[in-house]
């Protein structure tokens, strides 16, 4: 891996997007090699600390992939996660990390091509932003 390559974490709910990721494999869809997918039972399980720790450990972007609104298997997990993401974006902003590096996407489809294209779009965005700044100016 190149030093300039972005490192991207995707927290994917196992009910919709993770099936999409599985299908992407079955359909032999190509998507960016810079992402690492972490399967979660529901996006409602994700806390700000999971996201902050990802950035602390060197992530340049974090995408949270959940089920469509009204379609969460635990009723309001995704709605709760939307709030968590809002709060975490604020925390990132106050830590010198662009809040755009964090995104939540709710998936309606389980097909591989949808998953691949959404992931690729996110990776493109993060590539444009570059790595989280590391130069020292103190």
């Amino acid at each position, binding site marked *: 891996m190149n030093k300039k390559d972005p490192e991207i974490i995707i927290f994917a709910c196992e009910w919709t997007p993770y099936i999409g990721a599985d299908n992407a494999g079955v359909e032999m869809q190509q998507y960016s090699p810079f992402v690492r997918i972490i399967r979660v039972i529901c996006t409602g399980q994700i*806390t*700000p*600390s*999971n996201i*902050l*720790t990802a*950035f*602390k450990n060197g992530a340049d972007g974090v995408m949270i992939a959940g089920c469509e609104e009204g379609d969460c298997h635990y009723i309001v997990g995704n709605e709760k996660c939307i709030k968590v993401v809002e*709060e975490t974006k*604020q*925390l990132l*902003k*106050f*830590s*010198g*990390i662009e809040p755009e590096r964090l995104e939540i996407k709710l998936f309606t489809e389980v097909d591989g091509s949808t998953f691949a294209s959404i992931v690729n779009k996110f990776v493109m965005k993060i590539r444009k932003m570059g790595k*989280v*700044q*590391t130069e*020292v*100016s*103190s």
Partner: protein
Amino acid sequence: MNIEKIIDDTKAYFCIECGICTGSCPISRIDSNFSPRLMVENLLLGEEDDVIRSKKLWSCLTCKACSSRCPASVDFNQFIMRSRIEAKLLGENGTCTHAGTLKAMMELQTTEFFRKSKEWIPENFKVTDRGKFYYFVGCLPFFNIIFKDINVKSIDIAVSALKIFNFFGIEPVISENERCCGHDHYWIGEFDVFKTLAEYNLKTINNSGAEVVFFTCPEGYNMFKEVYPLYFGKLDFECVYLPNFVNEKLRDGDFSFLETEDKVTYQDPCRLGRFMGIYEEPRNLIQNIPGIVFKDMPRNRANSLCCGSSNWINCTSVNKLIQVERLKEAENTGAETLITGCPKCEIHLNCALFDRDNNYNIRIKDITTLIAEKLGGK
């Protein structure tokens, strides 16, 4: 394991088994299974697993109510902190409150790229990048985001501090490179994180040319004043708790307070009171506000009751009961406002206040905010 060293350094061997610690401990009063005396005994008797491996190790508030009364001068706070370091090595852990958000937020500050945004500073305030006076903002901007759900606006404290500085003609240095003081990691036994944070802070402050560093948070104040020097030697600057500075100005007759109508009481934060011995300055400030009615709670100064939680670990119904007890005590003085000197007391007591099972007629206010509101003519 360094058990013997812990016993040596904390003078645990002096323990006379009087039980004053357990009798003084706010946790023991509610949870009879928790006993500082037993922890000391167990370690002395070689039953270290009963201490190091026990979940109770993480319930201690490190409030110093025990050690401040111990007739044998056993340093129970150090005892807990050091035991936690050993416990961490064995993979033991406390339960993080707030789903670990605060802990992760502090650990994010150990990275090189972290920059604390100054976006919270309102336009009309004067601050600078280099100078003699430095204001340590600490975690206030983050608390402000995390605790907005329980109606706590921690950033008001920082804005109030700026108002006070500018009122006295000071343009304080505020730095993006500042980190959390490391207080919580220090007390939960994660020494490395504490050390990294402290090193960043010392570098930042030394580079700013500061001679005096002001604090509005007693935890940061205590860390800089008493803990940093233990590990980094004498600091190149002076540490001042901002209300103390205002108190001196008041004594010198440099300004006066505006008239107000309020009935208040005061909560001694453990870091400020039992740790640093600052009891009278905040009271003096409050009592000098014309029109204010001040009444102390029955448990005050060194006997003050902790706000019920610290270090962002192990907050349970026990802690909530301590807070409820304290709020009732405050209300019984007839006060309408409970003044505290610590942003964390403000958060914890507000959390209990927010609980709609009880109806309280009291609100919580930080002393820095109170001062800024009532600053009058020079």
